């Protein structure tokens, strides 16, 4: 079966600012595809082009086989969307919001009641159907919005930063819900700037400064895209230690993670030895030093660094020539 979303060289320019730059990827049916990137990277712009809200400047994209230029109407019938901004009516009751979205999505009459009850149950709001939506806690509002986006049983669900501004417990619950939805066969395209949420995704794309830097499963990314090995160092003064080891030959990267230091070294044994020597020389006490499995955060930090570096070099070359 063809992929749910296929994107080829998708580009969007605002004035002379390139918000999305020749992005290509595809999303398989039934998977949770995570679109990761810092604020302003171009995640929302990409999603809005796929939803027919925004016209691309150039490039191709198909959602469920429908062309985003010419078959927007077909796409709209088959997708659900939760925008970055909470987008239900605060002044309507819970059930009124559900009825409204169910109505404009034209959920079949005989199915309607059952879908509304389903949405209420999923959001955990069966007892609060008569409550004014604006009075609900953020986590509940978010689940209600999700319920409304799923009333018409879309094949693809687009979620733009669904968990921003939600407390950690609600965030976990929300990801559980997303998992259940995907298990039932719905394709989920979700954006986030929380690195820790990336682990919930089947596949990930990292977008940074309008460009898609890498794409793959969490495992592929962890082991495939690191240029070296990550070594975790427990040291007495991690900040100073990071500054010291960063300039050492064979060290690609050094960053402070909590109380520890994560150092990316080109060669595992060689690297550990050099780090120990340098830190001992600077009278920094090292409690432990060992190679670890890289977290996605390590991977992204590393990729973003090398991207920045490449940009700088590019700029220097351009200036020099």
């Amino acid at each position: 079966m063809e992929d749910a979303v296929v994107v080829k060289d998708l580009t969007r320019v605002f004035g002379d600012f390139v918000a999305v730059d020749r992005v290509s990827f595809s999303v398989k049916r039934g998977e949770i595809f995570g679109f990761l990137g810092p604020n302003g990277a171009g995640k929302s712009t990409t999603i809005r082009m796929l939803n027919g809200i925004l016209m691309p400047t150039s490039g191709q994209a198909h959602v469920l086989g429908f062309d985003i230029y010419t078959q927007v109407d077909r796409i709209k019938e088959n997708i659900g969307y939760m925008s970055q901004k909470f987008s239900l009516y605060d002044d309507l009751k819970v059930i009124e919001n559900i009825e409204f979205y169910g109505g404009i999505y034209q959920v079949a009459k005989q199915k309607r009641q059952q879908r509304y009850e389903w949405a209420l149950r999923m959001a955990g709001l069966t007892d609060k159907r008569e409550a004014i939506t604006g009075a609900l806690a953020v986590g509940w509002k978010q689940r209600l919005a999700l319920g409304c986006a799923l009333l018409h049983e879309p094949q693809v669900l687009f979620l733009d930063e669904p968990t921003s501004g939600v407390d950690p417990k609600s965030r976990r619950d929300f990801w559980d819900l997303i998992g259940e939805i995907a298990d039932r066969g719905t394709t989920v395209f979700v954006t986030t700037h929380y690195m820790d949420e990336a682990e919930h995704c089947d596949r990930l794309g990292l977008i940074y400064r309008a460009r898609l830097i890498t794409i793959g499963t969490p495992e592929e990314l962890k082991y495939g895209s690191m240029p070296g090995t990550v070594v975790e160092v427990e040291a007495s003064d991690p900040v100073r230690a990071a500054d010291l080891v960063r300039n050492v030959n064979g060290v690609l990267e050094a960053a402070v993670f909590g109380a520890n230091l994560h150092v990316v070294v080109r060669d595992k044994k060689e690297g550990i030895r050099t780090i120990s020597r340098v830190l001992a020389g600077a009278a920094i006490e090292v409690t432990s030093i060992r190679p670890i499995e890289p977290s996605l955060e390590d991977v992204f930090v590393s990729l973003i660094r090398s991207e920045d570096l490449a940009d700088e070099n590019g700029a220097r070359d351009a200036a020099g020539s």
Partner: protein
Amino acid sequence: MFERIIHIVRKEFRQMFRDRMMRFLIFLPPIMEMLVFGYAASFDVNSIPTAILDEDKTPASRAFVEEFSSNGYFNFTQYLSSPDQIDSLFDRVDVTVCVYVKKGFERSIGSGTAAEVLIVVDGTDSSNASVVVGYITRIVNSYSEDILLERITKFRGVNPTVPISANRVDLIERTWYNEELKSRNFFIPGIIANILTVVGIMMSAMSIVKEREIGTMEQIIVTPISPLELIIGKMIPLVVIAYIDVCLVTAIGTLWFGVPFKGSFIFLFVAVAFFFAANLSFGLLISTVSATQQQAMMNTFLYTFPAMLFSGFAFPIESMPYAIVLITYANPMRYFIELLRGIFIKGMGPTQLWPSLLGLLLISIIALAVSVARFRKRIA
């Protein structure tokens, strides 16, 4: 399509009536404006502050002065003793009229020569003054007539109740259509125009901009609903409110304030439909140039003020400079005021008023075309 529109309409009504401010905005302004214009801001000329200087102090002079007080238009606020007081009185704007009966008034009347009376009118407000002069002319004329009749009777010995003079000339000024010169009758059409502007432009623009502001617009765009369906769904409740308000104002105006309604209700409803269509198009246009509800409100006021000014509502278009008169042809309110006055006061129908309907139709079509084009672009 029809079903989706119904859902929009239902949602709009729900939101409207849940919002206390909105409930207020729908029904309060028509009633308030009616009361304010009907009572307080009456532009009718009555209770004119009047000073009396009677040097003659005879039964005849008293009878003459009495003529002024008996009709209710003039209100004697000052009794003077010397002509020197008159100037300062007018300078202080204490009175609008001074009636000065000179010494020898009764004697002159008795001897059949011209009796002298000086009447001073403050002409600062010229339209006001002309009305006052009209009243005075009528009073003086009727007084002289009475005297004339009396004398004829005396000479000929005929019963004065029998009209005898075939060649008597009656000078009765008659203002057409609005015979009592009641400003109320003129203002009520203005109130209807004003309310329909608020409902049609401000409420429609704000209702669209609000969805954009709170982010629901984006959510609605990704549903299969089309922009046209959305707009129609949002406009229907406003049309309902507009007609309720028109009925409310017309009912209060005719039943309570006794404003004449000479035309046909059906034609009034037709005229309202044309004017409201123009307003909704303008509202849509404003929604495409406003980022926030506040901006939409400001833009509506920026439009409403000149539109009212150059509509003929308060100032007659005939007395405007030619360049401005040309501009008024692009002003929907101008046509609507013409229509309403025609319907209310003159009892006119489509045969006389079709040019105004045509004007409104053209404006609506142009404004709608521009705003739909802009709306499509702006939606993203």
